[in-house]
C-alpha cells in the first residue's frame, strides 16, 4: 500500500518535472490562491470598508490608460472601489465557494457511491436513478428553486449574510452524482478483487471494509475529478452570480463583478467587466490544466460526462 503510494508519488513528481505547462499552471494557481488567502495583506484597499470607497472616484480607468490614476492600478468600478482589491476579494469568495462546494459534493458523492457500489441491489438502483435525474437538471434550476426556498425561510433582507454557504449548498447538492458515479465505478471494480474477499472472510464489517480497504483505492479518480469539479464549481458560481442569483453586489464574486460591469461595456468602461473576466478565465484555466495533467498521470476511469 505505502509502496504503491510512494511509487505513484515519485511517478507523479517525475512527470510533473517534465511538464512545463503543469509547472506553470501550478505556479499561477499557487499565486492566485495565496493572494486570495492573504487578500487583506495584498490588496491595496479593503473593498468592504466604506471608509475607503468614495463615489467621486468611480469609473477611473486602469493606470496605463489616459485618465488612469496611479492610486488605482486597475482602475475603479462604478462605486469607486479599487478594481484590483475588489477582484482579489472577489476571487477569494469564488475560490471559497468552489472549494466548499467540491468538498460537499465529494462528501455526499463518495458516501453514496461507496455504499451504493458495495451493496448493489435496490439501494444502488434508486441512487443511480436519482443521480440521472439530478444530472439532467442543471444546477441553475436547482439554484433557483433553493434560493426561493431559502429566501422564504431566512427572510430576504438577511440573505446576503448566508449567500456563501447557500451557493456552496446549491452547487454541492447539484453535482454530487459526478462523484457518486465515479466512485461507484471503482468500487464495482474493486469489490470483486481478492483482498476484499479476504477481508470479508476475515470477518470485517462492511463499513470497515468499505472505508479501510476500498476507499483508498478510489482516491486517485477522486483527486482528478476534484480538480475538474473545482473549476466547474467556480464557473457555476460565476454563472449564477451573472444571472443575479448569486453573491450580492456589496460582496461581489468574480461572476457578480462581471455582471455588474456588463452594462458599462458599451459605454467604454470595459475594465469593469473584462478584467474580472480575465482573472476568472486564468483561474479556471490553470485548474483545468492541472487537472488535465493529473488525468494523464493517473489515467483513471472517470465516468464520462
Amino acid at each position, binding site marked *: 500500500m505505502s509502496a504503491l503510494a510512494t511509487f505513484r508519488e515519485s511517478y507523479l513528481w517525475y512527470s510533473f518535472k517534465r511538464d512545463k505547462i503543469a509547472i506553470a499552471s501550478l505556479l499561477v494557481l499557487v499565486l492566485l490562491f495565496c493572494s486570495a488567502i492573504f487578500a487583506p495583506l495584498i490588496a491595496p484597499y479593503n473593498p468592504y470598508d466604506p471608509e475607503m470607497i468614495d463615489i467621486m472616484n468611480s469609473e477611473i480607468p486602469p493606470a496605463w490608460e489616459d485618465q488612469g490614476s496611479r492610486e488605482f492600478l486597475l482602475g475603479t468600478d462604478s462605486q469607486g472601489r479599487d478594481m484590483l482589491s475588489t477582484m482579489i476579494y472577489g476571487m477569494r469568495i469564488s475560490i471559497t465557494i468552489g472549494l466548499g462546494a467540491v468538498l460537499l459534493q465529494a462528501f455526499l458523492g463518495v458516501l453514496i457511491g461507496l455504499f451504493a457500489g458495495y451493496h448493489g441491489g435496490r439501494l444502488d438502483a434508486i441512487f443511480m436513478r436519482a443521480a440521472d435525474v439530478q444530472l439532467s437538471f442543471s444546477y441553475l434550476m436547482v439554484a*433557483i428553486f433553493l434560493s426561493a426556498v431559502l429566501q422564504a425561510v431566512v427572510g430576504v433582507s438577511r440573505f446576503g449574510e448566508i449567500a456563501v454557504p447557500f451557493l456552496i449548498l446549491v452547487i454541492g447538492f447539484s453535482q454530487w452524482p459526478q462523484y457518486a458515479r465515479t466512485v461507484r465505478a471503482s468500487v464495482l471494480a474493486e469489490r470483486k478483487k481478492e483482498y476484499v474477499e479476504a477481508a470479508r472472510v476475515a470477518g470485517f464489517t462492511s463499513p470497515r471494509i468499505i472505508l479501510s480497504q476500498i476507499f483508498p483505492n478510489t482516491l486517485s479518480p477522486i483527486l482528478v475529478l476534484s480538480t475538474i469539479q473545482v473549476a466547474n464549481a467556480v*464557473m457555476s458560481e*460565476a454563472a449564477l452570480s451573472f*444571472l443575479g442569483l448569486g453573491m450580492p453586489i456589496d460582496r461581489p464574486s468574480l461572476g457578480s463583478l462581471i455582471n455588474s460591469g456588463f452594462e458599462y461595456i458599451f459605454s467604454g468602461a470595459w475594465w469593469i467587466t473584462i478584467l474580472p473576466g480575465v482573472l476568472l*478565465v486564468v483561474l479556471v484555466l490553470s485548474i483545468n*490544466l492541472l487537472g488535465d495533467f493529473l488525468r494523464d498521470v493517473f489515467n483513471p476511469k472517470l465516468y464520462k*460526462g
Partner: protein
Amino acid sequence: MIAFVIRRIIQAFIVIFIISVIGFAVKQSVGDPVREMTGISVSAEELQEFREKLGLNDPWYVQYVRFLGKAVQGDLGNSFFYKRPATDVILEKAPATLELVFVSSLIVILFSVPLGVFSAIRPNHFLSRFLMSGSIVGVSIPVFLTAIMMIYVFSVKLGWLPSFGRGELVMIGGWDSGLLTVDGWLHILMPSVALSSIMLPLFIRLIRAEMMEVLESEYIKFAWAKGLSNRRIWFVHAFKNTLLPVITVGGVQLGVTIAFTILTETVFQWQGLGFMFMEAVERSDSPLLVAYLMFVGIVMVVVNTIVDLIYGLVNPTIRISGASS
C-alpha cells in the same frame, strides 16, 4: 423494448410529478404576481381581493390539488403576463430555443467529429496539439463571457452582426423560423456559436480520447493485420465504436445545454424559453414557471430514453434492462 418504454413513461410521470410539487411549494416565494399586474397606487384591500380571486391566498397544497385536477386535463393554467394558457406560450417560444440548440449542435457535430478524429489519428501533429490546448482554454471561458465578448467585438466595434433578437422570421405551420432568411441566420450566428463554445471543446476531447482508445483495441489491430485500408479502419471500424460513448455523453449534456440557453438567451435577448424563464422569474409569473419546469422535465426524460434506445440499437451487445426477458 416495449416494457422499457413503458417503464420510462412511468418514470417520466414520477419526475414531472415531483417537479410540479417542488415548483408549487416554492412558487410563493418567487414573488407576488399581483403586485406585478397592478399599478403602484392600488390599495391594499384591492390587492387582497385580487389575490383572493386568483386563489393565491389558499395554502399551497390546496392550490396544488386544484392545479393537479386541471393538469390532468392538460390545462397547466394561464400565464399571468401573457394572459394565455402557459402551454401555448411555451409552444410558441419553443421554436426559438430549439433552433438555437439545433444550430449549435450542428456546429458541434460539424467541427468536433473531423477535428476529434484528426487529432486522434495524428496525435503529434501541431494542429492536434493546438486543438488540445485550445480546447482546454475553450472549456475555461464561461458562456456568458464569450457572449459578451462577441457582442463587443462583432456588434459594437465592427458592427457586422446584430446584437439582439431573432431578426426576420417566417411562419410555417405555427413554427416561427429564423432559418429561412438571411437576416435570421445573421441573428442566430453569434448566439449559437456562444452556446456551442462549451460543448465543442468537450466533444473534440471526448471523440479524440475514445477514438484513441478504440485504435488500441484488439479488434482494430486485427483489422490492420487483415490489410484493410487506413481510411476504412479509421472511418468505418474505429469511428463507429467511438460513437457509442459520444451519444451517451450527448444525452447527459443536454441538461447542461438547456441551462446554457438560459445564459445565452439572456445576453442576446433571444426570445426563447430560457429568456422567457428568466422573465417569468422576474415577473413571478408562477404558472408559467411551473409549466416550463415540467416541460424541461419531459424533454429530459424523452431525450434520455431516445439516447438509451439508440444506444441499444447501435450496440446490440448491451441489453436495455427490462428488454432482456
